[in-house]
């Protein structure tokens, strides 16, 4: 499916390596992202799922400009933020890109009143009068469903869910167009999760926001995302429309993730889980990095890394099981 007319985010062949310093020795580079390619349309939510260490937060940090990738390109609202004019282009879009991180406790300074935290991006941008700023804070509090007098209180006076609302209010303060939400509800109870996810959906409807919504819980993503990208050990292994992915997961890892999700249904007999653990990035398996755990592994999988290929409209999979079907093309 073609994404919406305007594209907020275009990522091409994105790679990221970190130096992993053996003390005294020359640091070896560890590659944590491998050739990621995806788009996020305007007013669209792309879900990004995968297990710990798969590289989800690294993607989010690159998109908001907190990390500089080691390869590939990123365009935000049509401007390249990885090319020669990186700094100038990023400055031009900075206020349109915001983030919400997982841990609302760490995200808020305990000694700073909530109103100040929310207004921080406005103060940094420095273009509002004192009165405009206070009005804006009150407006934002209302928008995220917090009492107006919250501005004068301190973070510890709020529950986890309320603190996440504060963080969302701050992210919205400069009226962004694209927000990276990195596990925004993972630390919350189910009913609080539902409240926050609903709030994010309402805000999207009202302001036409695009989201990159990062999670390890596939059920939360299912409600909010239009398309979902699944990551394993630094690569995207499948991208599909939400409904297709959940109804008919193609990549063996996507299937394993969905099978492993506990469901609130006592009559369900869960299939046995795949063995093993996510491989170390220091010594990644050859070929397909999932081959050590894959129930369908073939000799070819050990030697050759599968590429992410479009195997149906809007549906991309990186798995040798699905390349054969497409070789009959003219």
């Amino acid at each position, binding site marked *: 499916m073609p994404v919406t007319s305007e594209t907020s985010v275009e990522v091409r062949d994105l790679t990221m390596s970190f130096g992993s310093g053996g003390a005294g020795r020359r640091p070896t580079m560890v590659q944590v992202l491998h050739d990621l390619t995806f788009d996020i349309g305007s007013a669209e939510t792309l879900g990004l799922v995968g297990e710990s260490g798969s590289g989800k937060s690294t993607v989010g940090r690159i998109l908001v400009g907190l990390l500089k990738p080691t390869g590939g390109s990123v365009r935000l609202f049509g401007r390249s933020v990885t090319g020669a004019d990186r700094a100038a282009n990023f400055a031009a879009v900075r206020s349109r890109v915001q983030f919400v991180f997982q841990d609302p406790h760490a995200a808020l300074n305990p000694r700073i009143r909530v109103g100040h935290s929310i207004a921080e991006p406005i103060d940094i941008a420095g273009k509002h009068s004192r009165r405009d700023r206070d009005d804006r804070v009150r407006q934002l509090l209302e928008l995220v469903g917090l009492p107006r007098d919250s501005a004068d209180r301190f973070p510890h006076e709020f529950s986890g869910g309320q603190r996440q609302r504060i963080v969302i209010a701050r992210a919205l303060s400069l009226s962004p167009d694209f927000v990276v939400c990195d596990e925004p509800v993972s630390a919350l109870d189910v009913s609080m*999760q539902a409240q926050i996810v609903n709030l994010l959906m309402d805000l999207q409807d009202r302001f036409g926001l695009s989201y990159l919504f990062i999670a390890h819980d596939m059920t939360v993503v299912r409600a909010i995302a239009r398309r979902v990208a699944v990551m394993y050990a630094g690569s995207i292994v499948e991208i599909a429309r939400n409904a297709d992915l959940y109804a008919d997961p193609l990549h063996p890892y996507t299937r394993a993730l969905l099978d492993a999700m506990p469901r609130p249904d006592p009559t369900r007999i869960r299939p046995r889980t795949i063995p093993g*653990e*996510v491989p170390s990035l220091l010594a990644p398996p050859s070929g397909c990095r999932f081959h050590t755990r894959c129930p369908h592994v073939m000799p070819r999988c050990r030697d050759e890394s599968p590429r992410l290929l479009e195997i149906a409209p809007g549906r991309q999979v990186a798995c040798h099981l699905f390349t054969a079907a497409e070789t009959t093309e003219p």
Partner: protein
Amino acid sequence: MPADALVSIRDLTVQFRTDRGWVSAIEDISLDINAGECLGVVGESGSGKSVTALSILRLHARGTARAARGSIMLDGRDLLRAPERDLRRVRGGDIAMVFQDPMSSLNPVLTIADQISESLRLHQGLSRAEGRSRAIELLDLVRIADAPRRADEYPHRLSGGMRQRVMIAIAIACRPRLLIADEPTTALDVTIQAQILELLRDLRAELGMAVMMISHDLGVIAEFAHRVVVMYAGRIVEQAPVGTLFSAPRHPYTEGLMTSLRGRDIPGQRLGSIPGRVPDPDESIPGCRFGPRCAHVEAVCRAAVPALVSISENHDVRCTPRSQALAPACL
């Protein structure tokens, strides 16, 4: 009390010392854990699940916590009043526990084999060599590959999932009759969580022990438990066999939890949620503690604390309007 109850908790109230005096974290808890069964305990953060579990083994810090009322019976003995010496024998012997964070429970300077055999040497007087070979058997039992080599490693070398397997090996070393698992998979990745739940399910069947599975995740509870206790703000609000609880929840709070899971399969649809939040233990709320968030609240709810009433066999609900409507008239 049913004949096959292994542990029987009655009217348990546990309080903590705070600036404002003693505050009840759990109140009026009565539940049985039957031999060989898997009891699920579910509830949102702060509902009192861990406080209940820790009370069974009397693991609360002295002086800051007290059991103000109640009893916890094991083999005709009240664990709340037993001498500390007896309790040491119960801990790790009859009843063992695994926690959410395996790293903080493992000793970084002892090998895996030494940690596993520690309780065997304490409870069964094994020698160091005997302890090591039992440790290797136990590592096999928790499906750790290459057990003899792993036995001599230190915990920091292990992944989170491996550490949790080691914690389980330690817990089952003395063949406990009850294993209390407090959010054992919450910190783990989805596929590893599924592996650990499978392991616990297999071990429960192989060893015939009872498991008290504590989780805030209704999915985990649905797949693991035979019977479920739902806690809210320090009290049991509903208890029922797992099938009944998920097909016919009766307490408005349980209904709310179930609703918040529904609709997740329809993109863009708003999720059901319970408005408001869980109260703190020292918030005074007249009558039902769920009242301020409940869509069905009535005057009777505020007038008195609802009692936990049996509405059918093995199904209890703490909600005055519901139990009036549903409880069998003849008592």
